[in-house]
């Protein structure tokens, strides 16, 4: 079992962040990360609905060395203050373990340069992955209004609606699938479905 390593980090807004970590088993043995995958996220607080995903670099898998990276165009999104982060690994057998956690102090950047500014959010790609919708989506008219609000606010954003199903990728969606997702008419009127590469 790996040791959960608590380490508080400092991130400077608008600058590249990178910090190395060495992971140990209980008892001090290095964790061999061969065939492991790792995922780390930074949030404003544990219950926050949004997160930044670390770019994880495997410096030396056998010696348990990884680096957490956040590019400057992403740190520039962060307001100064305290955040929390954690890193979880998935072992080759599918078991998962938390290996790193702590707080992140985000400090405001001193200098601002055009190269530090993040690409605009106006044309961000959005991906929703959901098998069926019900709780919280609202009535038919409410869903219609939500989609209208999204498109009014972000007319240039690309949006993909992915639906995990038992028959899976490569099969046509049908009216039954659309109804399961409570897809509103104004979404259907502008979407592209059932053509390559979508099937």
């Amino acid at each position, binding site marked *: 079992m790996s040791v959960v390593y608590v380490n508080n980090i400092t991130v400077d807004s608008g600058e590249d962040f990178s910090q190395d970590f060495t992971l140990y088993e209980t008892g001090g043995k290095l964790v061999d990360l061969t065939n492991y995958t790792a995922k780390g996220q930074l949030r404003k607080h544990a219950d926050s*609905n949004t997160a930044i995903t670390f770019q994880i670099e495997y410096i030396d898998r056998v010696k348990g060395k990884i680096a957490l990276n956040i590019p400057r165009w992403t740190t520039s999104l962060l307001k100064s203050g305290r955040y929390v982060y954690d890193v979880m690994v998935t072992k080759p057998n599918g078991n998962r373990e938390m290996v790193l956690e702590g707080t992140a102090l985000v400090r405001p950047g001193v200098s601002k340069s055009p190269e530090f500014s993040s690409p605009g959010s106006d044309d961000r790609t959005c991906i929703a992955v959901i098998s069926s919708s*019900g709780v919280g989506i609202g009535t038919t008219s409410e869903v219609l209004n939500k989609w209208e609000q999204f498109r009014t606010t972000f007319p240039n954003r690309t949006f993909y609606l992915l639906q995990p199903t038992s028959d*899976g*990728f490569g099969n046509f969606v049908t009216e039954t699938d659309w109804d399961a997702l409570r897809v509103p008419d104004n979404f259907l*009127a502008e979407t592209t479905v059932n053509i390559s590469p979508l099937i």
Partner: protein
Amino acid sequence: MYNYTGSETRSEIANGLTYGPVKVNIDNGDVSSASDWFDICNLSSLPEGSHVAIFIDNSYATQASYDALVTKLTAKNITVITVDYFNQDWISPFIFNDLSGELS
């Protein structure tokens, strides 16, 4: 709901920005069952430094696909903003939590 016959496409009236629903695999963490979301969503065309916002209702069902996507995006220096939500509303997270591009 829309009078859909089940065999047509909407490409003739599509805006070119909205896609789906697109069926993808339930992988339950099994890499061999994963779908290539990077390819399906044509993300290879995004430039370095772009941002992708993702909302997932049941992360375990598609964990392998998600992990593969994040690996490909981070390799291209594309930032992934994961938007969790505690109900099955797939629109609101992109309006509110992701409105300004900052973490809430």
